């Protein structure tokens, strides 16, 4: 007992950290548990009875699955567009000096510092003033807008940390600019671009506030959950929540594992021979 006590005295910061992580994971555990729940009635949020039905038939409430599919479509289009535009911007900002650079940095920074509520309402004000019909495409426009800054920042970070000498070496070896870009630059920046795309997708998929103002009658998954919160949440919502969590976690863990293996492989290369050849 006293040993446990002494361990805590020495490691109390770690202890507190673990408690906070517990706080962060508590709702996830509840969502997971509720995905196996047969609720006693529509408006009940308590665990009533164990069942696998929700997992066996996640699309029992078909309008929910429609909403999920729509969210994935919007997320996909917004991700592709935001990643493309943002990557180009990141290249320009890191690799070039030009007039108006600091002003542009502010324009990119501001959407991240503006409350979503303000972005959502201002876009709505613009769409209404321009008589633009709200729906699928206004949601896409909004999502590209708020994902863009995050993509720029993520890709910029990767580009800034890159060793320029590798590209210079390629060009010294008579690679054309295009070849250098294809064979050296792109593969080195790619992890940053992929991270930015994943971030953009998750931001888009999860967004409620901005979408709520610009969706008209189009229903995305978060909007479906919001509406259902008033009518009674079907337990399948928790299945989607749990599945999303599991898929994302697997993706991250897989990439971590791959990174570790790649590092190990790099260490395994006999270093002296590699240098003597150059």
């Amino acid at each position, binding site marked *: 007992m006293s040993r446990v006590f002494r361990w805590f005295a020495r490691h109390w910061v770690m202890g507190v950290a673990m408690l906070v992580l517990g706080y962060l994971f508590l709702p996830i555990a509840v969502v997971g548990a509720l995905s196996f729940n047969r609720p006693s009635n529509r408006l009940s949020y308590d665990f009533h009875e164990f069942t696998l039905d929700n997992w066996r038939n996640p699309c029992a409430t078909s309008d929910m699955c429609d909403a999920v599919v729509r969210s994935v479509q919007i997320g996909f289009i917004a991700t592709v567009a935001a990643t493309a535009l943002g990557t*180009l911007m990141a290249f320009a900002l890191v690799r070039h000096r030009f007039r108006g650079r600091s002003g542009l940095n502010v324009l990119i920074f501001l959407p991240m510092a503006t409350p979503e509520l303000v972005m959502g309402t201002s876009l709505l004000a613009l769409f209404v003033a321009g008589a633009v019909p709200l729906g699928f495409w206004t949601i896409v426009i909004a999502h590209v807008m708020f994902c863009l800054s995050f993509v720029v920042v993520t890709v910029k970070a990767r580009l800034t940390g890159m060793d320029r000498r590798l590209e210079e070496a390629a060009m010294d070896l008579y690679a054309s600019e295009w070849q250098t870009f294809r064979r050296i630059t792109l593969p080195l920046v790619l992890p940053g671009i992929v991270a930015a795309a994943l971030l953009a997708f998750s931001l888009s998929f999860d967004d409620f506030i901005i979408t709520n103002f610009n969706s008209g009658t189009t229903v995305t998954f978060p909007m479906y959950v919001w509406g259902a919160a008033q009518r009674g949440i079907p337990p399948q919502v928790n299945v989607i929540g749990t599945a999303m969590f599991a898929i994302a976690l697997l993706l991250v863990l897989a990439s971590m594992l791959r990174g570790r293996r790649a590092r190990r492989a790099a260490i395994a290369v006999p270093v002296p021979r590699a240098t003597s050849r150059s």
Partner: protein
Amino acid sequence: MSALAHVPTGSGQPASPPPTARSGRYRLLPYLLLLPGAAWLFLFFALPLVQLAAASLYDPNGTLSTGYAMTWAFGNYPAALQTYWPQFSRSFLYAGIALVLALLMGYPLAYAIAQKAGRWKNLLLVCVIAPMFTSFLVRTLAWKTILSDNGWVVGLLRDVHLLGPDGRLLATPIAVVLGLTYNFLPFLVLPLYASLERLDHRLLEASSDLYASPLKTFRRVTLPLSMPGLIAGTLLFFIPATGDYINAELLGTPNQYMIGNVIDSAFLVRLDYPQGAALSFLLMSAILAVVFVYLRRAGTEEVL
């Protein structure tokens, strides 16, 4: 022409200018790269803000169906503030309390991951982000189950008499603040972690070698060196928390409504655009003012 002649060096600023045949293209290239993204941000971020400002000055007697007349009705601002002062001030109060709670929880967490976790660092970092993979709304609804009147949390608190026999958590300010703390905590932890991770452990050892108590080491070494992350994290937490209305809606009652709930209903239920726009603009100005004062006091040079 040697291949070396057109090697771009450094960070894009050619030490020796590239051959003249190419310089025209080089000068235009950054603008071409920037054009689509910058145009998007201008059209769908900057321009809407101008439109929002305009909408906030529309004639308050207009309706969405008959159209609004631009009457430069500056009176919309004091009118909106007067009506919704409780919700407005509550937003900042709740976000402020949630921020203090988040700092108390987030600092030890960030410190432990950055300085004490060793080879578990990356895994713990994933654990901080992982809860965000599940939808924001679904997680907030899970708090409804956790805090429900016949849940074990309320039961436990009643047993130890921290809550009265029919005391409750759900539909109280406590639930809303707890939800805000929970939802935005990772935004505080990540930048804090980034700056604590760069903290040189030898400085802490040097401090204790010089007979500083752990508390003094924290106050004089750790805290000042983590300031950039602390400032960034505080802002990343406070700005969305102030504008949030999901927690107040799902975990509270109209007595806990924040300004976001009012703006949402102004735009989507009451269709009172001038008032909604005025409140939106007031919220943004107030946040900007708070951020500005805070940055002036905390020192901007580390952040901007």
